[in-house]
C-alpha cells in the first residue's frame, strides 16, 4: 500500500497523474512569500477597527459626522409621553402652577441614602454638601445659589423643588438629562432631611445615637 504522506497520495487515490513537485528553490520562494503575506496581513487592524459604531463614535457616512443620530423632527419619544405624569413634571392636573405637595414615592432610609449620594454628585458642586450655597463652583465665581434652608425653599412644595432640578432656575441649568426622575425625587427628599438637620438640636437625635456626634 502506498503511503499517503508521499504527496501524491490523494491524487493517486482518485487515479490522477502525479503532479510534478516544485523545485526546492521555488518551494522555498513560495513559502517565504506566503509567510511575508501572513505577517503583512497581521499588521492590518481590520479586527481591531471593525465596520461598526461604538457609542458616540464619529461617522464618515452622516453629514454631521455623528453615528449617534439626533431625533428626527416630529418624533414623539417614549419619555415625552410622560409630559403629563406628575411623577415626571412635579405638578398635578397638567397645571404648572399646581405643584405636588407630597413626594410620590415612599420615603425610606434607602431613598434618603440614594438622595444623599445623588445630591453630593450633582448638587453639592454649587450648593455644597449642606445646601448653604457655598460650594466649590460658587467659590470659583458662579452666581451664588439659593440657600436650600431659606424660608422660601423650606416652604416650597416638593413638586416645586423637583421642577427646579428638572428645568433649572435663574442661573441654575436644568439637570433632567443628567438625573433620572426617580433620583430627582430622592434628592428632593434628601433636601427635606438637610433642612431638618440644619435647625435640629442635640435633643432631636435619638439617645442611643448621640455618642456618634462627638458632643455631650
Amino acid at each position, binding site marked *: 500500500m502506498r503511503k499517503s504522506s508521499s504527496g501524491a497520495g490523494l491524487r493517486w487515490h482518485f487515479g490522477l497523474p502525479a503532479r510534478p513537485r516544485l523545485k526546492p528553490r521555488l518551494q522555498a520562494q513560495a513559502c517565504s512569500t506566503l509567510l511575508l503575506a501572513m505577517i503583512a496581513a497581521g499588521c492590518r487592524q481590520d*479586527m*481591531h*477597527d*471593525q465596520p*461598526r459604531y*461604538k*457609542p*458616540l463614535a*464619529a461617522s464618515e457616512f452622516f453629514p*454631521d*459626522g*455623528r453615528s449617534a443620530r439626533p431625533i428626527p423632527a416630529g418624533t414623539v419619544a417614549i419619555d415625552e409621553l410622560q409630559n403629563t405624569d406628575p411623577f415626571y413634571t412635579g405638578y398635578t392636573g397638567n397645571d404648572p402652577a399646581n405643584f405636588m405637595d407630597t413626594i410620590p414615592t415612599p420615603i425610606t432610609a434607602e431613598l434618603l441614602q440614594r438622595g444623599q449620594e445623588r445630591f*453630593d*454628585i*450633582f448638587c453639592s*458642586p454649587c450648593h455644597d454638601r449642606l445646601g448653604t450655597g457655598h460650594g*466649590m*463652583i460658587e467659590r*470659583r*465665581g*458662579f*452666581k451664588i445659589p439659593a440657600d436650600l434652608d431659606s424660608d422660601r425653599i423650606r416652604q416650597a412644595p416638593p413638586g416645586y423643588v423637583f421642577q427646579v432640578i428638572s428645568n433649572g432656575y435663574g*442661573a441654575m*441649568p436644568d439637570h433632567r*438629562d*443628567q438625573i433620572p426622575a426617580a433620583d430627582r425625587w430622592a434628592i428632593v427628599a434628601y433636601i427635606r432631611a438637610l433642612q431638618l438637620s440644619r435647625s435640629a438640636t442635640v435633643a432631636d437625635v435619638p439617645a442611643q445615637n448621640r455618642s456618634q456626634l462627638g458632643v455631650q
Partner: protein
Amino acid sequence: MPQFFSRNANSVARLSLLGIVGAVGALACYGYWIQGSHYETRQGEPREQPVPFSHDHHVGGLGLDCRYCHTTVETSSFANIPATKICMNCHSQMWTVAAELEPVRQSYRTGKSIQWTRVHDLPDFVYFDHSVHVRKGIGCSTCHGRVDRMPLTWQAESLRMKWCLDCHRDPAQFVRPRDQVFNMAYTPPSDQLALGKQLVSEYRIISRTSCSTCHR
C-alpha cells in the same frame, strides 16, 4: 587541491547555526517586549485634545464626582462622554471669554460635536461593560489610575488581555467596597486579600475567564 577551509570551519558553521536559532529567539523576545511596551500600548502618553480638558482641575481641584459628567457609567456599558451642555452648566458663567474654551462655546452655538480624541480604545472584538465592573466593586482608579491628577488624560494601564486576566483570574486582589468605587484616593487596606475574599462572596463575583466573556 589546496584546503579552502581552515580546521575550525566546522565549529564556526555549527556555532553560526546556533547563532541563527538564537537570533530568531531574540527577535521573538524583542517582538514580545515591543508588544507590551508603552510605545505600543500608548500607556502613560497624554493625548492631545481639541480643548485641553484637565481632570486634575475638575476632579482633583474642584472635587466633581466622576458621575457628574460620566452619567451612564453605572447603568450602561459605556461611561458616556458628556454632552457640550454639561460643560456649559458651569462654563456659561465661568471662563466665558477664555480662548481655550472657544471650541466648547462653538459646539454649543452650532450644535456640532466636539471631536474628542479617544484615550482608552479597546479592540472592537472586546465587549467591555462599565456598569457590571462598577456594580461589583471595581474602582475607577483601579483601571484608570489617578485621573484626578491628570492635567491631560492618559491611559494608566496597558489594557492588554493579560492585564484583564490578572484580575479576572483573581478578583479578590482588586475588589473594593461599593461605596469606595468612585473614590479616586482609595488605597487598598493591608489585608486586601481577606477583604477581597469577603467582598467576592458578598457581591457574588465569579471569576470569569471564558473567551466568550469578553469576545463574542
